[in-house]
């Protein structure tokens, strides 16, 4: 028995060396047209050997280690405690929410412009993640091409502003509705497809959209993208130093204050905040409505759902459409924030990141997803030196989460429905 263990552990260690040494230990150095090989430095080699040793020991003592770590997967910070009576919980939640929103409203005036900018990006990702949460977390449809709807929202605004000079506020609903339309259109072909196929086809759609955006140069600017996207105005007041549009007034002049570049950044942040809150609240309502219950039923057991009269077509399409709608919101804000968009921002990697957020946060759980979005967007900023490793860590985190804790960091908590005891 022990001999078997040692053989197996040794085998795993050897495999580790094989998959680590050639790729990590021997670096290809291209110089011009010639390629040469260079052995990696000592620390890398040491790391490789250390990894092999770790694997060896882990495999050897696997059972006892796994037993001790097993509790991690069952940890639920919210369970164990007595569930609060429903009305108390509701009140606590609304107080907490109000507090957070008030904080979020006043916070930007006290911090640097860069932070507010980052926060806007966080809010954009929150919208995206909440939208994808509907499709993946609630309805259980693995959409890998979600970034396409994001692109539709962004490009709609960019194109509208370029060709018709439409403002942010007009473009917002148009972009969202157009994205929803795309969601509907993309949803139709995938109706009958099972999980894996659905994933690949949606991925294909996302890629097709990106390739089209890249190649329709006369319409979309191709790889050069579209620039000059305006920022949102407040009742005709622009936030720039000088007015860009005829007929608009300038914010700082109207209010007699000195121009500061923070103004437009903060304004956009506030808009993003409002939109994100709307997104969260609307989806939260949907979750408690028949449409949301239908989504979850579809995810849980499509066949049972069909046997109860739920039309798989209607449920799937509603999930796609609504999810896409919020991606349209996010896209419009993103375009305005950047002032310039190109197909580079809408690659599959983005879809993967948003998916990672939903998965890490806990599929279905809005709070978990919001926290994960914040973490995923902010952490790379905090650990600048490690930003190269960002995606590597994401990938590993996705695998680890699925293996250890598929329900996510903050699993979705069921709604407690009071059935008052009547006679």
């Amino acid at each position: 028995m022990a001999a078997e263990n040692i053989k197996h552990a040794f085998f795993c260690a050897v495999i580790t060396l094989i998959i680590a040494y050639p790729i990590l230990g021997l670096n290809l150095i291209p110089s011009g047209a010639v390629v040469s090989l260079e052995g990696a430095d000592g620390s890398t080699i040491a790391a490789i050997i250390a990894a092999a040793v770790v694997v060896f020991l882990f495999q050897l003592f696997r059972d006892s280690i796994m037993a001790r770590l097993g509790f991690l997967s069952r940890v639920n910070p919210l369970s164990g405690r007595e569930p609060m009576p429903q009305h108390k919980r509701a009140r606590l939640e609304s107080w907490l929410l109000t507090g957070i929103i008030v904080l979020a409203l006043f916070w930007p005036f006290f911090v640097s412009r860069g932070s507010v900018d980052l926060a806007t990006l966080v809010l954009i990702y929150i919208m995206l993640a909440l939208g994808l949460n509907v499709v993946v977390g609630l309805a259980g449809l693995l959409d890998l091409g979600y970034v396409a709807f994001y692109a539709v929202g962004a490009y709609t605004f960019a194109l509208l502003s370029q060709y018709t000079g439409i403002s942010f506020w007009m473009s917002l609903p148009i972009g969202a509705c157009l994205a929803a339309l795309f969601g509907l259109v993309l949803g139709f072909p995938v109706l009958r497809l099972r999980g894996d196929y659905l994933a690949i086809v949606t991925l294909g759609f996302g890629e097709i959209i990106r390739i089209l955006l890249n190649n329709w140069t006369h319409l979309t600017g191709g790889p050069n993208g579209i620039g000059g996207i305006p920022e949102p105005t407040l009742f005709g007041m622009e936030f720039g130093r000088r007015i860009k549009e005829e007929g608009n007034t300038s914010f700082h002049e109207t209010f007699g204050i000195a121009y500061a570049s923070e103004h437009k950044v903060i304004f956009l942040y506030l808009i993003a905040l409002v939109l994100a809150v709307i997104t969260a609240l609307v989806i939260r309502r949907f979750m408690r409505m028949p449409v949301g219950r239908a989504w979850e039923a579809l995810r849980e057991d499509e066949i049972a759902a069909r046997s109860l009269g739920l039309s798989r077509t209607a449920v799937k399409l509603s999930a796609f459409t609504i999810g896409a709608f919020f991606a349209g919101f996010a896209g419009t804000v993103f375009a305005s924030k950047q002032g310039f968009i190109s197909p580079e921002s809408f690659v599959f990697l983005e879809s993967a990141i948003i998916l990672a957020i939903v998965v890490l946060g806990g599929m279905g759980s809005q709070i978990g997803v919001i926290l994960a979005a914040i973490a995923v967007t902010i952490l790379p900023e905090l650990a600048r030196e490690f930003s190269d490793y960002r995606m590597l860590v994401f990938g590993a985190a996705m695998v680890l989460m699925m293996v250890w804790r598929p329900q996510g960091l903050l699993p979705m908590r069921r709604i407690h429905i009071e059935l008052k005891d009547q006679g």
Partner: protein
Amino acid sequence: MLEVKNLSMRFGGLLAVDQVSVDVQEHEIVSIIGPNGAGKTTVFNCISGFYKPTGGQILFEGKEIQGKPDYRISRMGMVRTFQHVRLFGNMTVVENLLVAQHRHVNTNLLAGLLKTPDYRAREKRSLDRARYWLNRVGLLDMANREAGNLAYGQQRRLEIARCMVTEPKLLMLDEPAAGLNPAETRELDQLIVSLKEDYHVSVLLIEHDMSLVMGISDRINVISQGRPLASGSPEEIRQNDDVIKAYLGEA
């Protein structure tokens, strides 16, 4: 109410169901029995629209329904259960019952967002119905438990409650007694009979457990290897030689 005439279902080279005919009138309990692999569930799948039958005719309340999609048939008033319990495991018991009433509630998004009176009234009614049926099957204090956490017998009862909450005309149960102990089976007996008597639901039943079937059925159809073997009252079936022979292989 339900007429199945010469139903056939072919899968490639295999004729799983061959000229089976069944009918269910109002206010009665009809059973389909037969040895394992006889094709009983396939018949169910054809009737409930999960399979498209390759031959035959199915009439529900006089209208042809063969080949219609599953959810349409369900909305006409025919719901079914499955051999393996298919609950929405991660949803609570009560949520399972609410989602089943999908066609009775207001699914309009705007109405729900704005909480219109019609929306609220329908939600309340569906909640009442859910409460009633949970009470009826004895699961009221489990209302907020996740359905997947229930004991097997409770899950079976929940499945039936979930069907009843849709206010069906015909209830199709696929081996409802599978895995239940004798006490639970007797409770199930009483429940099914009560469904017929008190709620005027017709029941079409697939079962393996002869005691359940003999006790409550008004009529029995026997199928073996996809072909009809016999049909009649429990008494007649009990004395039918072919049936006894077909079951002799069964322990």
